[in-house]
């Protein structure tokens, strides 16, 4: 419901822009693959826009609906695929994103569930399309799944290391950029906690 309103509001906002631009084509801009970043205040939104535009991200400032406002009346529309890298870029610049929302469909949410499967002495943790496998000592013996370029990079960085000895700045969500990295991090966190307990 909230997201339907969001869509309407974003569409209205775009329609207004389109009238200004006198361009009919822009009216039908698709929201597929788009999301909204919500900030705690206007200043953060405006600063974020400056930072991200300098880095050539495809973003635009839009009005969020009252239901998701956090004391701010501006939000950033962005490409969902760039979620993790945008949030980290802003964090590196001292800006916290309060919430990120998909504009695609009311039922679309990032996958949270992690499944655990024993294979002999090994344990595989799967979140969506990403899998991480530990041996009985907690060493990461394999990583599989995904399709974004940071997955092989993360694999090289994480393989053959003990999951409890990996420093926080080398976690998948810190090294990665993509939604695959985000999903892998869910499995990584689960594996780390499971091993610890």
């Amino acid at each position, binding site marked *: 419901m909230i997201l339907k309103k969001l869509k309407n509001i974003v569409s209205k906002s775009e329609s207004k822009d389109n009238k200004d631009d006198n361009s009919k084509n822009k009216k039908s801009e698709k929201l597929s693959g788009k999301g909204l970043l919500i900030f705690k205040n206007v200043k953060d939104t405006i600063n974020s826009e400056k930072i991200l535009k300098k880095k050539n991200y495809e973003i635009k400032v839009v009005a969020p609906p009252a239901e998701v406002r956090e004391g701010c009346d501006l939000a950033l529309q962005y490409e969902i695929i760039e979620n993790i890298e945008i949030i980290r870029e802003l964090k590196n610049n001292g800006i916290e994103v309060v919430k990120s929302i998909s504009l695609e469909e009311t039922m679309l949410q990032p996958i949270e569930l992690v499944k655990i499967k024993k294979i002999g002495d*090994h344990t595989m943790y799967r979140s969506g399309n990403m899998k991480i496998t530990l041996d009985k000592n907690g060493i990461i013996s394999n990583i599989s799944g995904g399709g974004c370029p940071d997955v092989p990079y993360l694999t090289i960085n994480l393989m053959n290391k003990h999951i409890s000895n990996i420093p926080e700045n080398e976690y998948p969500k810190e090294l990665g950029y993509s939604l695959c990295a985000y999903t892998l991090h869910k499995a990584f966190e689960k594996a780390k906690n499971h091993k610890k307990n």
Partner: protein
Amino acid sequence: MVIAGTIPIKGLGLTRGNVEISFDNIRFYNENIPENTVQIPISMGTATLVASCYKTLQYFNRSNELVAILAGDIGDGEGSTKIYEEISRLNNKFLIVHYIKPKISEITKIDFERNFVVGDAGGMYAGKAAGIGDEFKLFLPDVGELAFLADKDSSHPAYVRGFISEVDDLDVIKLIKMAYETGKMPENMVIKGETDYIVQNGEIIATVSEPKHAAMECIGGTGDNLTGIISGLIYCGYEISEACTLGCMVNREIANMVTPTPDTKINEIIEAIPDALNKLID
């Protein structure tokens, strides 16, 4: 035959050319580095696809026909942009688009009329998100990725509807139907998993489920390996559905030969491709 995909080396410029394979790495020429030759381990991703495809073509004495378009990318999209630009100029090629940052605006620039295009990993994600899956000749998803293909509104496997987020409980047959109801799927698809499904025009024409080796699921690169074998077989003249079925059988025959554990590395699997092909091809 062209394989286009990223390599996890930050800043490595675009490379286009032949590759060489040794037991656990691929080597290729790159004019931007001092020694001119880049060597990277076959761990997963594009390097694995290149190696498995090379081994398959080598079986038919055609490995010198394999060209790789590679660029360094650790996720920021720098190398992906260069690869998209390069493949938008291809004409009359058998092209596999592999690990790459999914970009809707870039994947649509490929000339699908003039090239035979296979989509896997990021190439498949981009094709689906752009709504042009039907322009590809073949997709090779695993079951989780099939759920993404079946969800008409999802643009990445990390965002799917609640009811298809539990991969273990998925009804593959129903998902195949849902995916093809979108009208935006390729004519051919292989769903890689505990049972491999070979699909043509939305109909399951074959399944391969024996022998089972549970460890294969957690070995990074097994899916890439299967894509390499199947693509190699198609390129060497096998009819698409025949190549898909035979490729799945070869992959399982390899597992029989290697008897993998979760510690097994993908290069050990790739090494067995010629023997498995030899056993299954008259």
